[in-house]
């Protein structure tokens, strides 16, 4: 299984890993493979309020720029600073070292709308 069981997944290919009320967010292995080499990431500053289904940043691959859509609402409390000079971490290790932001969430119930690893895998197969 490529997709960790304990994560939740959005239809726009972000993943969430929840610990207490802190949601770590990144993009999925499928997303990075579709984008190809990621060369630049634009992320919000710590303290920014973001909302579920709202924009929280963008990723540039060689060919195109893509939106990052937040799977949850809350306040950004940490940003992965390593991505500024090493965005290739997202290609190499999308589910762990390539994490993007940590959000202190307002509504844990928002995660109920997201997919499980099994559901996401089916979703990706249907899309491919």
């Amino acid at each position: 299984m490529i997709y960790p069981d304990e994560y939740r997944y959005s239809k726009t290919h972000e993943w969430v890993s929840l610990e207490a009320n802190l949601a770590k967010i990144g993009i999925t292995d499928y997303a990075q493979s579709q984008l190809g080499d990621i060369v630049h990431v634009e992320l919000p500053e710590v303290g920014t309020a973001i909302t579920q289904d709202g924009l929280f940043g963008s990723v540039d691959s060689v060919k195109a720029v893509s939106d990052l859509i937040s799977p949850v609402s809350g306040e950004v409390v940490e940003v992965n600073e390593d991505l500024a000079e090493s965005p290739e971490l997202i290609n190499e290790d999308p589910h762990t070292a390539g994490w993007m932001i940590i959000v202190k969430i307002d509504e844990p119930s928002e995660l109920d709308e997201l997919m499980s690893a099994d559901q996401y895998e089916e979703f990706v197969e249907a899309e491919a």
Partner: protein
Amino acid sequence: MKQGVLHDLHLSLGARMTEFAGWTLPLSYGSILDEVRAVRSRAGLFDVSHMGRIEVGGHGAGALLQRLTTNDIGRLEIGHGRYTMMCNSRGGIIDDMVVFRTDTDRYIMVVNAANTQKDLDRLTSYASDDVAVNDLTWQTSFFALQGPLARAVLAAAAETVPELFRFGSALARIAGNCCSVSRTGYTGEDGYEIGCSNSYSVQVWETLRTAGGPSGLAPCGLGARDVLRIEAGYVLYGRDIDEDANPIEAGLSRFVRMEKGEFVGREALQGVLEQGPDRLLVGVRMEDRSVPRPGAPILANGATIGQITSGTFSPTIGRGIGLGYIAAEKSLPGLEVELVLREKAYPGRVVATPFLEF
């Protein structure tokens, strides 16, 4: 959608395909950036069979090309090639191309895929009875072997390797088959472009790939080709130049030979030279990894002075780079600019192209 003869072979090599100028072509076989690095440090092999190849033959062939293009084709020797452009009467660029003279009265033009039919129509409409214009694109394949080790790869693949200067062209034998070989390319590196009949193009490709194994040759797609040409400061038709752009503002004046005599567009270009162009194509190097995208406004001191036409991330220098037009009076190397990308301003600098030293 048109497919090349090697379509299935590319798929078997793991290519991700993309659409370009009505063709389905390899975008990359893995990582675009790895393919760029392979060409800069070793060698890469591209299938560029979508490029239009037009044969212009007959007693009036040279005169036709002299009349329809901007460079001096009259002085082109057999076995040599030259970069040139076809312009309209307003001086706008109809297409840019390399013309090779392969015999006294025979020339091969290598043109942009999207413009092949337009070029054929124009050549045919201007051709006198003693000129024959033929489209060779469909019968032949065309490969680019590029990189510092390209010469070693060709030497390993070919039974006879012609000694060629830059833009020289000759015939060579690869896997027993007759191929045209020219020392040209679109990457800034040393390298060759190789043409051959479709009936043995798979064999030629595979022979080159096998011969390149010890050199670390990588098959490369359009994605890497675009990064490489931007790093080298080469314009792409449809992005950086089109019928509304003239060679002077596109920085291609040295390929316009006013002294050769009459040619289509000469009068308009003479006017541009006398008055000076309104805008100039320049290189922009970002201060960070942000990627210039076509259409992004270029600002200086808060005022818009131009627009990006091509951009990418350069793995070689680790920064975003782009080409774009700015107001001619602002065009000074070192000028600090800002690019607006997704409503945010990113700092960059106007620089001379190519972005790399070759």
